């Protein structure tokens, strides 16, 4: 038997490959599930773990740091990052430190602290670390970076499912969901699925109009506010007479 054939295979799927943001959008729950296929139908070993990593489109960012100078808080330093995932969520079947080695976690970017944010300035390592932790703290507070330990359940070593919440202020774009099969601290199989998060209907129309026809959009905004002002004056004028 070939050695390669002894490796198990992942068959992943997601509940939605397209998430539409409409007027009533208050967040979503993404269900990631799938099966683990073992070559030759061999009985699976019990300690099978799964980690799911969901990443949003990466964007370049400028992070500013405030400091107290002469009693006043001002922006005093900044750092650039070339590619910061706009969204990052990891769901695992057991705590990260008992899942894989630190080295493997860093290579596959499993865990918020293992994200590669590619700082662009040539500043010192300690300074970069300070800005990185500041940025990560901001993202965590906005609910855009999250770790869901124990959110993946593996049944009989064959079926897995993970429920990952997507917050309402999620950025739009092309997302990737990477699923890793882990045994004895090693990643033995991986699979990727694409998820598209986009605005739909009226919301998309508004966002596109604001971006593509800025002059018309601005004039429309003024017109609407003028009309609403007039309407209120008319309504109250009638009431009083």
């Amino acid at each position: 038997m070939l050695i390669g054939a002894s490796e198990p295979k992942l068959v992943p799927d997601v509940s939605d490959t397209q998430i539409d943001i409409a007027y009533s959008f208050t967040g979503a729950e993404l269900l990631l599930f799938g099966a683990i296929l073992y070559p030759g139908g061999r009985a699976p070993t019990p300690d099978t773990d799964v980690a799911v990593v969901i990443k949003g489109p990466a964007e370049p960012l400028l992070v500013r740091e405030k400091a107290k100078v002469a009693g006043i808080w001002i922006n005093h330093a900044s750092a650039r990052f070339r590619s910061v995932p706009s969204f990052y969520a990891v769901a695992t079947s057991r705590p990260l430190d008992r899942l894989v080695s630190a080295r493997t976690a860093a290579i596959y970017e499993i865990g918020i602290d293992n994200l590669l944010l590619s700082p662009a300035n040539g500043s010192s390592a300690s300074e970069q670390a300070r800005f990185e932790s500041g940025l990560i703290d901001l993202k965590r507070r906005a609910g855009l970076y999250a770790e869901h330990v124990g959110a993946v359940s593996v049944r009989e070593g064959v079926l897995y499912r993970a429920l990952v919440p997507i917050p309402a202020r999620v950025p739009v774009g092309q997302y990737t969901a990477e699923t890793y099969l882990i045994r004895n601290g090693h990643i033995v199989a991986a699979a990727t699925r694409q998820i598209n998060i986009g605005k739909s209907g009226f919301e998309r129309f508004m966002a596109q109009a604001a971006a593509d026809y800025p002059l018309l959009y601005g004039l429309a905004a003024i017109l609407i506010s003028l009309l609403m002002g007039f309407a209120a004056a008319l309504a109250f004028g009638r009431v009083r007479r």
Partner: protein
Amino acid sequence: MHLYLPIAGLSVNALVIVLLGGMVGVLSGMFGVGGGFLTTPLLIFYGVPPAVAVASSATQITGTSVSGVLAHSRRQGVDFRMGMVLVAGGAVGSFVGGFVFHLLQKTGQIDTIISLLYVALLGWIGVGMARESVRAVLATREGKPTPPITTKRHRKWIAALPFRWRFYGAGLYISPLAPFLLGFVTGLLTVLMGVGGGFILVPGLLYLFGVSARVVVGTSLFQGLFVTATTTLVHAMTTHAVDLVLAGLLLIGSVTGAQIGSALVQRVRPERARMMLAVIVMAVAIRMALGLTWRPDAIYTVQLL
């Protein structure tokens, strides 16, 4: 009821936003201040991105001002001639302000200095108004005649300006250059600080020129209407940050509030109304001063490149 804001990119409780608009509208109708000083920080606190909060509250103030101007004009409470001169000055001022803002942005730090100057200016105006209005309230309580708002009804430097015009609503015979300059300064500061021109305009009209108190609020709102309409357009063209759903929700509350506010202010004695505005101006100054000196909630801020 939750509604998703397409530009801000988050969902908000529609009722909260409408009520916030209503509260700001009442203040606006009563005192002639735009209310951006209240809306913008509250929206940011709610999680709306700062640029969207600033741009959309400008759109909201336009509608509120229309509503307020119409309500006041029913009672002959707007001097349109004075208003147009202020608008002209404001247009030049905001144009120059945009240019200055660009220069200052490059150097990075200077916005802190402007904030300090603004705090000092607002503090000075607020304390001055408070002293004057408290004196007037006390005088009426003792049954004495109300002292005039400004002892120098015709200040020397204003009287020295050439070509005088008659402003019937305001009850003045002064050179249009004086209100033009006031409009200019207001426009300049509005663009630089992004906070209310009304705070400078209303006290300026009352205390510098001695404009009749009956028309001050309406005339200030008339000027604010043009300034914020321009601001909306500029934001729509440059930052693309005007959220019409957010602005619409705010407007529902604030156009109604402006009508209520302008009716309310008729029932309040003018010196008491001035005292309330003085308190608001001082509160804004204190809030800005604290914002500069308190440890901010977030040491780090992020800007998309």
